[in-house]
Every structure is written in C-alpha cells, then in structure tokens.
C-alpha cells in the first residue's frame, strides 16, 4: 500500500511536492545542505521521516551531500538530493563521479540567479550546468518541469529512469516552482500504473565476496587513454540506445503555425499563454517545449520547426536553451530569434510583444 491513498487533489508548494513525490516513489533517503530556494524539500522530508522510516542527513557541504547520495545509491537505497545555484556548482564533482560510475541517484535542482551567489529567487541559468556540468560528456537524464504536476510526475519518473538506465537523473525546477503554491494531483504511482524504480545493491549484493561470488571492485580511475575511451564509449552507446525511450516534449498545437515559440520549464507556462493570445490576435503561433533537456527531443523539435517561418526561443537565461535549439535546428532555413532575460521571469505579455516584433522583422 502506497503512502498516498488513491488520488488526492492538494494545494501545495513545489518543494513540498518534491518531497511527497520522492516518498510516493519509495525513496528511502535524502542528503542535503541548506541553500535557498530548495530548503523546504529537506524540511518536509525530515518532517515525514519518522512516520515513514526515512533517512536524512544534513551534511557539512554539498560535496558531502552529493557523495553520501552516491554511497547510499551504491548500497542499494532509492536516494535523492536537492540543491541550487552555487550548491549545484559544488555538486558537479559528485555528479561527475555518478556519471562515470553509472550511479543511479536523483538530483532536484531548484534554479536560482547566477553566476556566483546572485539571487536566491529564480532563474534558468543552471540549464547548461545541470545538463553538461563536470569534466565529461553530460551522460545524464534531465527533466525540466513547468508545474507542480510535473514536479510530482517527473520526480517519480527520474527515480525510475535513474535505476532503469543507470545514469544520474535530474529534475530541473526553479525558485518560482519551489516556492509557489498551486493545485496538484497526488497519486500512488503503483496503483496509477506508473513505473516504479527497481532497486538493488550495486556495491554489496547478496553473498560473501570470494566465497559466493567475485568481489565487486568499483573505480573511476583508468590507466590509459584507450581504456578510458572503451569505458566511455560503452556508456555513450547505452546513453544513445536509451534516448528514444526517455526523450519527451510537449507541443501547444496550432494548425499551420507560422511562428514556433520554444521554451522550457516555468517559462513554458508564459509561452503557452502567449501562444493562445497570439492566436486570438490572428497570429498563427505554436509552442514547443523540450521536457527532457538531456537527451534532447531533437526529432520532434526539427519536425515542428520545419513547418514554420520563424522560431522564437524564450528563456530566463542568456542563450543556454537557445544554443541547444540552434544546434538541433542546424541546416534548417527557419530563422531563430530569442527573448533572453537572464535571472528574471518572463511574462506572457512580453513574449507576445516580442513575437509580434520579430514577425515584422523577418
């Protein structure tokens, strides 16, 4: 029996939703270090802990939180971690180890302004860091959420995907989503037919090493260039193979669209609203939202962009999504314009104005 009976409609903050989703998915442990705006995830997790037998440790820093998360995952625990901003920067060290050693752990990132300490409020400036941080290839699964329902759904999905594919998985939220309250439908994933993670000890499986089985010796250090590349190419092949099972996107449809507005995360809400307003005004607009930023839904984006005369990328960062979009649209003739507001939320009205302006220009 799950911790959530049936289906419940609740009015909650995003941080609460994350804690409930992790609990509903069967997560057993969380490690964290205080940083705004994700703190309430730890607060709710620790409040829920005694009743549900959950583990939590507030570590001495984000490095420790990240590495303890890895230790717990290796020991076979469904575990997650949450951070933001400068904490996310520090967290890249353990995350790179998780990437190399295929550790199935989940990080929830509630983006705040950057670089440096910047603001504790909101941003989409951790998009590139979360996708490609560390000294590697970005072998990660990154879900970008735009609503509390997304937070609930994708925390559960990220926990599943991490263990299914053995790559570190991320739920990329932001300070707005963390702090705002809106309705959300909580459900027991099992009775809702949602995939649940299948967890097993990686480091300490059944049996006595050298008696029942060979010892497990895990490492992230390699001797020579070719040995490293062999290991990495194995990981990369696995990553590419799983991509078709993981990529997700959403479109706000419009017949014969002439303008495609591309946004991710909470900005998608403004983009969708702007698309509706534009259509009311007689402008044939459509919207595209990558839900997974890693792997990126390249095919569906190209298919949507091929049909239009103008693509407009909107984000609360200075070109982090735009560069991903431009990369994916390479070779298409459609012009790309962007509304870039690093560290600041974007209103639907601003998007409407920009699209009208860009439409006149091209």
């Amino acid at each position, binding site marked *: 029996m799950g911790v959530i009976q049936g289906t419940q409609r609740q009015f909650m903050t995003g941080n609460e939703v994350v804690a409930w989703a992790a609990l509903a998915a069967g997560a057993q442990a969380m490690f964290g270090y205080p940083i705004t705006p994700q703190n309430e995830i730890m607060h709710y997790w620790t409040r829920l802990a005694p009743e549900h037998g959950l583990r939590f440790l507030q570590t001495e820093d984000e490095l420790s939180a990240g590495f303890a998360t890895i230790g717990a995952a290796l020991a076979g625990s469904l575990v997650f971690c949450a951070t933001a901003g400068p904490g996310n920067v520090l967290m890249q060290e353990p995350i790179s180890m998780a990437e190399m050693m295929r550790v199935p752990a989940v990080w929830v990132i509630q983006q705040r302004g950057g670089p440096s300490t910047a603001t504790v409020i909101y941003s989409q400036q951790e998009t590139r860091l979360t996708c490609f941080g560390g000294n590697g290839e970005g072998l990660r699964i990154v879900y970008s959420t735009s609503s509390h329902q997304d937070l609930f759904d994708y925390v559960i999905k990220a926990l599943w995907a991490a263990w299914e594919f053995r790559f570190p998985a991320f739920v990329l939220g932001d300070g*707005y989503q963390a702090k705002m309250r809106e*309705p959300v439908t909580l459900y027991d994933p099992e009775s809702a037919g949602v995939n649940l993670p299948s967890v097993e000890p990686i480091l300490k499986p059944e049996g006595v090493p050298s008696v029942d089985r060979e010892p497990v010796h895990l490492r992230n250090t390699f001797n020579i260039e070719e040995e490293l590349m062999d290991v990495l190419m194995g990981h990369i092949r696995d990553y590419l193979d799983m991509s078709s099972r993981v990529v997700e996107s959403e479109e706000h449809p419009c017949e014969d669209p002439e303008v495609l507005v591309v946004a991710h995360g909470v900005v998608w809400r*403004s983009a969708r609203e702007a698309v509706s307003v534009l259509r009311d005004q007689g402008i044939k607009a459509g919207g595209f939202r990558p839900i997974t930023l890693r792997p990126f839904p390249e095919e569906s984006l190209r298919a949507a962009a091929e049909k239009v005369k103008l693509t407009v990328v909107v984000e609360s960062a200075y070109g982090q999504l735009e560069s991903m979009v431009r990369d994916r649209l390479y070779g298409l003739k459609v012009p790309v314009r962007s509304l870039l507001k690093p560290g600041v939320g974007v209103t639907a009205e601003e998007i409407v104005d920009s699209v009208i302006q860009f439409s006149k220009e091209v």
Partner: protein
Amino acid sequence: MGYRRRFVVAGEGGQGIQAVGEILAAAAYRSGLESLYIPNFGVEQRGGASIAFVQVSEHPIGAPKFEHADIMAVLSRRAFERTRMHQGPDTVVIYDSSDLRTPVIDDKTVGIQGWETIAPEGFAASVGRERESVPESESRPRSRSILLPVPASDVAKDELTPRVMNMIVLGAIVSLVEKITEESVMEALEAKLGAKFAEDESLRELNRNAIKRGKELVQQVLSQAGVSG
C-alpha cells in the same frame, strides 16, 4: 480567456502579508478555482517589503509573473513603491489609510535587525506613530485605477487587536471577488491557523471578525463613493 483575477498584496515584513496571500489562494482553490500563490520575487524582494502574488482563474494558470494586477493591497509607502509597476489602468488599489510611517531601523534600534524582521506589531508603536498617506496624488495619473482607503491598522488596534490587521485586509480583498466564497475563506483560515485556534479559541472569532470588518470597510467606502457593491 475566461474568468481570471490577479492580486498583489504588499506591506512590511511582520505584517502578515504572506498569510493573506496563502489564505486568499487557498480560499480560491476551495471555491473551485485554479489558484497560484507565490511569495516575493524579482527586485521586489529587496528592501524589506513583503509581497505576495496570487492568481485565480477558471483555467490552469500560466506564468507566476504578470504585469498588471486586478487588485492590489498595499500597506506601506515602501511596499507601494516596490509594487507600483503592477498598477495598471484598471487596477483597484486597497491601501491602509491609517498607515504608519515606515519604521526606521538605526543603530539605536534594539532587537533583531534585518530582512523581513521590521515592523512587528508593537515595534511600530515603539518608534512612534507618524501618519503618512500612501498612494496620494502622484499615483492618480493611472487613469481609471480605483483607490480604496481602508483604515485597517486603526480598526485593528481600536476594535480588535493590532495583530489581525492583515485579516481586515484579506476581508477587504475578498469582498471584491465574488467567486471566492466566504465559506471557503473561513475554511482556508481554519486550515492555516487551526492549530493556533486550538490553543486559544478566542483567536478564531477575532480573525473571523477581522475578515468581516474588512468587508464592511470596503462596503462603506464604496457606498460613500456612490458605488454599489
């Protein structure tokens, strides 16, 4: 777009601004509307003002950020300065006509100093009660914007207790929003403060009365101005 209302509630830290936002949003949700509440964001966060943004709608709500509010409630001059960009031509602005001058925090001030800690009730009194009118003539150019003076602090102090000033403001706001039922407001109040009420039964009545007084104060202003409910 269907029915939609956007609210900005702004005041000093310690005035209970976020409680107004939370209860307002929860009451709308209980009234069967989609609802979104978010505390301070953007540049508004700096400088000690506390701001709550609430949106309610028949449809799922888009961006948490918006340009113009339908209803603003501003409880200090500073908070008004911080939020006036949200005052559009059609915005109704409720303000505390008994507003106190923003207390000055200086090196003589005893107690906690810092972000969102100034002006708890009693503290304002300790630094004197100098009156200042809030959105005077300079805010008028916004053509059709309607200003509703509500003497929330005075009424709270004189009739109830200073602590419930924010509930008077809540009552004033919801009196302008038909789709948020009184029943749902009381339910949301109970959900938020039920634990406190359990400790002290009298608090329930006090808060309920404050909400009712807020409604009455708005009715009075509107009837004086010749506007019917």
